């Protein structure tokens, strides 16, 4: 957010944990921090944008991935195909 630096942002996040709580408590913290009135105004006016950026940067946990550890173990490499691939793209893959 324009005008809100790293220091202020981390101060607010330490106190209120997330942007939703920061927004809900605007009237409490705006009197307690430096330039609080201005920062509170910035957050009030840009709250929808803040929520949008939060949704963009929050990682999703519901991607379909292999469910057991065994599925991640190294499998036999396809030596014939790998050799062909290596030759086709001249990669000199050693295996």
């Amino acid at each position, binding site marked *: 957010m324009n005008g809100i630096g790293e220091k202020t942002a981390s101060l607010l996040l330490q106190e209120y944990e997330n942007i939703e709580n920061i927004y809900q408590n605007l009237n409490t913290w705006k009197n307690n921090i430096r330039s609080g009135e201005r920062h509170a105004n910035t957050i009030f006016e840009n709250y929808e944008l803040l929520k949008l950026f939060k949704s963009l940067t929050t*990682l999703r946990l519901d991607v379909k*991935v292999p469910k057991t550890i065994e599925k991640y173990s190294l499998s036999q*490499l396809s030596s014939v195909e*790998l050799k062909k691939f290596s030759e086709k793209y*001249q*990669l000199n893959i050693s295996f």
Partner: protein
Amino acid sequence: MQIYLVDGTYELFRAHFGYPSRKTKQGKEVGALKGYVNHLQSLKKNYEYIGVAFDSKVESFRNEIYNEYKSSKNIDKEILDQFPLAEKVTELLGLTLLSMDHYEADDAIASVCELFKNENVEIIIGSLDKDLMQCLNVNNISCTPLGINLLQQEMMFIKNLEYILIKYQIFSLLLVILLMAFQV
């Protein structure tokens, strides 16, 4: 038991900028692919369980909620063309490929972390992407600045002194960022 998770897209980009250009006799650029293969082979020597997440399509659900989100439009065609090849070689090398549509590689890595967060398994995320720091709120998950050993092995392929210097600078910078992230 350890699972090493790789952001394949990130690795391919890293190889693209870190490795010298390399062309086949037909003129196809494969420098990034070569660097990527070297990296995977180094990992295979050190880990038994590896997952490689790849978001070849680049565009994801995030483009639907925000028009200006990163897209493939501004990505160099030379590297875009190597995406499907990198996915293919990942499987040929015997590694588990987490290929996806609509999501990004980071999301797949976070989903694996979520899945195994209460298991007796150590998860190592081979990336310093700041978004992935969201996965570090659980004890059995860590991030690595790609490992000093890997860096040394990769350097063997980079004969140009300038490249080595740049790599050391990037490595130092990444290390500082990591230390700051953990507030050491």
